[in-house]
């Protein structure tokens, strides 16, 4: 070992030790929002915040499937009873009616504070007459029979009014006293967790509490067949994917390592060579994780999963070192290959997805470290007698095959044309435009979630008025004002209805004005006497109304605390919450009118909202914003990829000093990308922006192989052609294998990247070889 080699080794040991310490102390996360885009517009930020921390993120739907309906109902009741006393949950609702009665009593007792109709006019002679007449009309309808007994106390029908205000939220079906799905085959429990959706540990304890409640409930049933537990919700996804990612990273690493070890052992037939070959890989992995921790402050589980591709790529350099003779190894070509890869991965750094930034930084640091270790440390460590199996025969065979392949460029050109035609004919269905395509949650889980949401009749809201204000009272105040405008839009049949936190708890100001509009008892009595003239009811019968109204004048105003122990608290909290940094946010989801159920004239809504509360409320088009978000990020991915591609081309132009040679290197890569896209089209797999990133990586990784077929590189080292070919094939197989393993990942982000890069890298090598124009006619035995 030379003196400089000794210094190098020393430096390596120090760096590895430092990196190991950083890696050991790094922060690891599996937060799915790393692969949710960051937020370009205020409205989109609102949307993403809601997805991440909003009340919607704290929803867990539990379904019980199988066994008979009686057993399911029993289990549902036992689970709910146990979970209601559990700390992780704010609310547990399975449709047992105890809560409903409490809610109705609350609404009835506070009807003069809660009803939108309570104004001074309501208590005028004319107002009372109209309201009482309406209530009597209602008695003639079946709905009125429900409220018949209330007439003496509530002749103006305030309870009916309030129920109408809250009426949009259809409850799930019930059977055996608990909520069930539309087809009656699942019983349902809807829970709200205390922890926010992005608090994975908190969500995990909630999920565990549900599981143990289920196990206890099942154990207590007499039935021999047990139902099955299904869960869905953002928190459930977060917990499941954290577990999946951890399992996946371990699994992928083991499979990938095993494949590479078997490959290298069968090639080298030397344990020493194998161990030495893995040194750059391990160094690279350490450097990559350390760089991500230092640069981004946290390491994502998916980054570690993606890290397995580094095994396949970083091992390439030692393959070149070992197989191509030490004298003739083409360091400049390898260096250029490393640089093009870095260019490709570097274009992920400015991405709006912190997850993609991680992958980029990890790969850059990992590849650089692996290349440096291979170049400067590894040669000094090779024993003097170091030899791997002579691969000249394999290389010679490859060279012969290539030389005999006449008309290869025509075949490649034909394939390119076919690919172009395929891509063109599939252009309409090529892209997946749905934001959920990016979701790190598997399609099966997304389907289950959609099904359960239908089961609980969660409204499919497209438009929502979003109010932002400094405090709760201000937010409710604006919600009240907007509500007044929206009520007139209901009258105009622009919308069918809306939800508002102010329906559950009006602002103090509004409550006060409602309370103040109730006349003094004697006054009201006199007015009532006049109001019932001509109606089939006498004022004497309505004595209880006068008593209630008098009591209501002295009633304290309602606060959020009064909603405790009613299911109204859940409804209210779902619509009003303190934002992460920006004061309070009130949500007012809109429902379309039944006369045009799939259309809301959002321009008119915007105008009305703008008039009601200028600058304090906006209309959020959830689907539109989500689609916009997706388009923005698709565009970003395309831009980043083009920038990365351009950087690679400029680098090649600069290094090769020839536009023609650059074009010759790039063409096979471009064709590989085209063929892969055509392949996806033929298989009917739609592309997302992750596939776009994958295409960039095909160029970045594939260029490593294409460069070896560049004329000067091959000419200058004509004698090593067979060995170069052999080493390229083995290096390529290693890379393709590691990306290929990724393609079978159950984490969609990894699967998309793997399934794009693996075939792309292979095709890049094949096309480069087939299109290479200057393979020497004969090959000599290498000197090494």
């Amino acid at each position, binding site marked *: 070992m030379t003196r400089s080699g000794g210094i190098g080794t020393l430096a390596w040991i120090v760096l590895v030790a430092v990196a190991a310490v950083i890696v050991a102390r790094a922060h690891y996360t599996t937060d799915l929002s790393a692969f949710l885009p960051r937020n370009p517009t205020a409205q989109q930020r609102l949307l993403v915040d809601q997805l991440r921390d909003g009340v919607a993120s704290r929803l867990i739907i539990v379904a019980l499937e199988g066994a008979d309906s009686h057993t399911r109902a029993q289990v549902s009741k036992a689970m709910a009873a146990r979970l209601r006393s559990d700390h992780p949950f704010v609310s547990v609702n399975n*449709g047992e*009616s105890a809560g409903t009665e409490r809610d109705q009593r609350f609404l009835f007792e506070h009807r003069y504070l809660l009803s939108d109709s309570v104004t001074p006019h309501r208590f005028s002679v004319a107002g009372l007459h109209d309201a009482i007449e*309406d209530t*009597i*009309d*209602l*008695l*003639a*309808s*079946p*709905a*009125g*029979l*429900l409220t*018949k007994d209330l*007439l*003496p106390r509530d002749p103006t029908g305030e309870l009916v009014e309030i*129920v*109408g205000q809250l*009426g949009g939220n*259809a*409850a*799930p*079906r*019930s*059977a055996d*006293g608990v909520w069930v799905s539309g087809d009656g085959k699942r019983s349902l429990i809807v829970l709200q967790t205390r922890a926010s959706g992005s608090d994975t540990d908190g969500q995990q304890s909630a999920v565990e509490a549900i599981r143990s409640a289920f196990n206890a409930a099942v154990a207590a049933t007499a039935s021999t067949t047990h139902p099955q537990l299904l869960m869905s919700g953002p928190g459930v996804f977060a917990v499941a994917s954290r577990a999946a990612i951890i399992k996946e990273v371990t699994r992928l690493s083991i499979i990938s390592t095993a494949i590479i070890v078997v490959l290298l052992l069968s090639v080298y037939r030397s344990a020493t060579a194998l161990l030495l070959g893995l040194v750059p890989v391990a160094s690279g992995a350490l450097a990559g994780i350390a760089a991500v921790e230092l640069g981004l402050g946290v390491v994502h589980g998916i980054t570690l999963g993606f890290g397995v591709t580094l095994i396949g790529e970083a091992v390439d350099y030692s393959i070149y070192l070992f197989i191509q003779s030490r004298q003739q190894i083409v360091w400049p070509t390898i260096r250029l290959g490393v640089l093009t890869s870095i260019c490709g991965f570097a274009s992920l750094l400015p991405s709006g997805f912190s997850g993609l930034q991680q992958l980029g930084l990890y790969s850059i640091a990992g590849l650089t470290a692996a290349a440096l270790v291979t170049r400067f440390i590894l040669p000094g460590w090779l024993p003097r007698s170091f030899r791997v199996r002579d691969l000249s025969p394999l290389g010679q065979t490859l060279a012969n095959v290539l030389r005999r392949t006449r008309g290869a460029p025509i075949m490649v050109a034909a394939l390119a044309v076919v690919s172009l035609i395929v891509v063109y004919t599939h252009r309409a269905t090529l892209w997946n435009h749905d934001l959920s395509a990016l979701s790190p949650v598997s399609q099966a889980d997304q389907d289950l979630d959609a099904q359960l949401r239908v089961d609980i009749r969660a409204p499919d809201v497209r438009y929502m008025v979003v109010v932002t204000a400094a405090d709760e009272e201000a937010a409710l105040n604006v919600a009240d004002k907007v509500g007044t405008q929206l009520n007139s839009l*209901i*009258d105009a*049949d622009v919308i*069918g*209805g809306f939800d508002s936190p102010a329906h559950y708890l009006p602002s103090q100001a509004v409550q006060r004005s409602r309370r103040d509009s109730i006349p003094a008892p004697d006054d009201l009595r006199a007015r009532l006497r006049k109001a019932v003239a001509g109606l*089939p*009811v*006498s004022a004497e*019968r309505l004595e209880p109304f006068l008593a209630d109204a008098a009591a209501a004048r002295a009633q304290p105003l309602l606060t959020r605390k009064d909603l405790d122990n009613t299911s109204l608290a859940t409804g209210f909290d779902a619509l009003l919450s303190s934002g992460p940094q920006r004061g309070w946010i009130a949500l007012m989801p809109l429902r379309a009118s*039944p006369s045009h159920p799939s259309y809301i004239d959002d321009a008119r809504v915007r105008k009305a909202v703008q008039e009601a509360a200028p600058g304090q409320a906006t209309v959020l088009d959830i689907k539109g914003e989500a689609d916009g978000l997706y388009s923005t990020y698709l565009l970003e991915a395309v831009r980043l990829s083009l920038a990365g591609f351009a950087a690679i081309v400029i680098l090649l132009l600069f290094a090769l000093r020839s536009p023609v040679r650059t074009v010759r290197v790039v063409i096979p890569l471009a064709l590989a990308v085209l063929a892969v896209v055509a392949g996806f089209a033929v298989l009917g797999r739609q592309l997302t922006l992750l596939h776009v990133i994958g295409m960039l990586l095909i160029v970045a990784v594939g260029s490593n192989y294409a460069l070896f077929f560049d004329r000067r590189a091959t000419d200058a080292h004509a004698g090593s052609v067979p060995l170069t070919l052999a080493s390229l094939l083995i290096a390529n197989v290693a890379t393709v294998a590691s990306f290929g393993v990724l393609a079978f990942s159950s984490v969609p982000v990894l699967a998309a990247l793997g399934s794009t890069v693996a075939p792309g890298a292979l095709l890049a090598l094949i096309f480069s070889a087939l299109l290479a124009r200057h393979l020497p006619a004969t090959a000599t035995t290498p000197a090494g």
Partner: protein
Amino acid sequence: MRASNPRPAAFILALAFTLAGALVCPIGNGAPSAHLDELMSLLAQRQHGHVTFVEQHFLAVLDRPVESSGELFYDAPDRLEKRTLHPKPETLVLEHGVITAKRGRRTFTLDLSSYPQIVPLIDSIRATLAGDRASLEKIFKVTLDGGLDQWQLVLTPADPVVAKSVRRILIEGARDIIRSVEIQQADGDRSVLTIGPEVTQ
């Protein structure tokens, strides 16, 4: 589909909506089985109906009865619609166990299954439509008076929950024509639904 009399459907309608109003009404044993079976199968044959109605409610809380009128629609197997035109327009649709009510500017959706005391009634309507007398008699004690040409069905709740709100239901008709449905509530209030002629399309 037979073009003749739609009133059996109206019977189902009236029954469904009255019951849907949260009140409950039943049918019983001891009826001349042969006749009842015959009547049931007549009723079950209906595929479609469209009639007018007048309904009077006699409520203790009011000094005089309130009256409403409108049209009833029925489509087999389980879609029923009651369109009240006077005094206030209101539309009620019962479909698959869910009531959708449109009154004024608001539309309400009410899932009958959320009211456990009504579930057996809706099941009984389905049973009637299917001609499933056995299921019906689980909930009602059914008595059939008179002959098929001029009959009166008396339905008495067999279910104690139902009995709390409904004393009995009287349905009068001739062959497969229903003339009136009277619902007597446990508290003494009652309503009488009088069915008019078929509305021609």
